[in-house]
């Protein structure tokens, strides 16, 4: 059995960092409350006996078909044009390493 631990603001900040999402101060109390309730709710899965049950990661577990290992162009470089940072066939981003 998993004991449900209350979800606190410190958990929210950690998760927001992992998810790469900034949160405004006014969003936080509500999110903590919502996530706490939802996590408490899904914790009821701990009641189910899953001993010797294999995880099911997909609805159809038969071997998926494979294609030939040949290059085929689905999208050309044109798809980069949708980026607001598009310049001369490249995407400009802020400096990554100082």
């Amino acid at each position, binding site marked *: 059995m*998993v004991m449900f631990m209350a*979800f606190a603001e410190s*958990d*929210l900040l*950690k*998760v*927001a960092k*992992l*998810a*790469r*999402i*900034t*949160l*405004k101060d006014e*969003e936080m109390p509500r*999110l903590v409350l*919502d*996530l706490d*309730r*939802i*996590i408490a*709710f*899904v914790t*009821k*899965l*701990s009641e*189910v006996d*899953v001993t010797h*049950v*294999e*995880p*099911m*990661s*997909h*609805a*159809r577990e*038969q071997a*998926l*078909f*494979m*294609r030939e290992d040949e290059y085929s162009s*689905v*999208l050309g470089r*044109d*798809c*980069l*044009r*949708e*980026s*607001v*940072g598009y310049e001369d066939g490249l*995407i400009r*981003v*802020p*400096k*990554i390493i100082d």
Partner: protein
Amino acid sequence: MAGYEIQKKTIRVIARDLEERAVTSVQVVESCLNEIEKRNGVLGAFLWLDKNIALEQAHLSDQRRKNGTTLGFLDGIPIALKDMILCEGYPATAASKILEGYMPPYEATVVKKLRRQGAVLIGKTNQDEFAMGSSTESSAYTACRNPWNLLRTPGGSSGGSAVAVSAGMCVGSLGTDTGGSIRQPASYCGVVGVKPSYGRVSRFGIIAFASSLDQVGPFAKNVEDAAILLNSIAGVDEKDATSINEPVPNYTRHIKADVKGKKIGLPNEYFLQGLSDEVRNRIVCAIDLLREHGAEIVEIDLPHTQYAVATYYVIATAEASSNLCRYDGIRFGPRRSDGHDLLSLYEHTRGELFGPEVKRRIMLGTYMLSAGYYDAYYLRAQKVRRLFAEDFKKAFLNVDVIVSPTAPTTAFPLGEKVDDPLAMYLNDIYTISANLAGICGISLPVGCDSLGLPIGMQIMADAFNEQTLFNFATAVEQEIPFNAHPPEIKEPGAR
């Protein structure tokens, strides 16, 4: 012919009228566009459309018919697409600000298939942001209303596609269903909606929410139209390795409304608390009619049903947190930042442009997948998922179909569940299991409640038995013809 009355006409009837030159595609499409112009301001069914692009396709269709080069059964018939579905030349936003203005450089296999049939792709429909919701209220762009009662939700997440068909703004439409997002809005709007078996329809070119659960399916005015539309989009696709290479029967040709000697399973767990009496009574009446026609009714157990919503929300949010990593301001949509570094760009773009429900789910999924919680939540949910699949496998050894309500109530008031995510999630209780198990389901209208709101009945069949769904649904439809239409809006803009 001025004012082709499209609102009550099916694909079958319009295709015949087109064939007999009783009407042109341009007239059919104009009729839809008039309806959209008149009512979209209030109903909010469409997020985007371009009259000229729609009429140009209709014009080309009429030319083909004149030249004897008609492409397929759908030639000239206006079909709407949920905004999750990529279509070249049409923006795709998934109703999110993070994809505002995005023009996809390629299109979905289902769209290619519709084009090959000559369908007129009339526009992109409203939905919950990234399909996360059950009321279309999380759309970042505009509210969507139920044509049967403007104060009620159309359901979701494919609310716009359901409303567009219900209100006669198009003849059929496509949606996506991850946990009930086709069947529940179909139920609330009095139309037919199909969630095909996982792998039946290609997901290539569909904006991903939860990849192991998502499927594309049709909305239509009746069961036959739904079968026609599913036939036009189903089949294996080399661009989607999860599509399954199983033959696609000609559903319409093989529809047999005969239920004599067939077994219908009624899950005990689906008729318990939370189900409204009016919905229960209507479904029981429909089942009695099937019994009178020789079907055998069998009570069955789906013992893990009480864990469906919890299992679904762990798996779906975990997959979503991973799928939505790609929206970071680099390749798609607008950028936001308060500094000069890449991290600030990622965090502000995502923090400012994702809506509250999407953020809630991404964070929930991230939590479920994070170190220390993965085994307790995600891995455990995957194990419980197997128990669901086994419940259904066992049930289908004894019965041909499983019948239930599509949703516990009829359309609920707008705003009622917006502030209570858990209550919103629990609305999906009857539809979620089909996605977890990968089986197929249909919702069809079987009457209205005392408020005049449609009631949907769900029929589920084992994977790749869509034909069985259509057979049973046709039998129900013949016994309980649903001829009601949403009331005319008296005062445009009235709330």
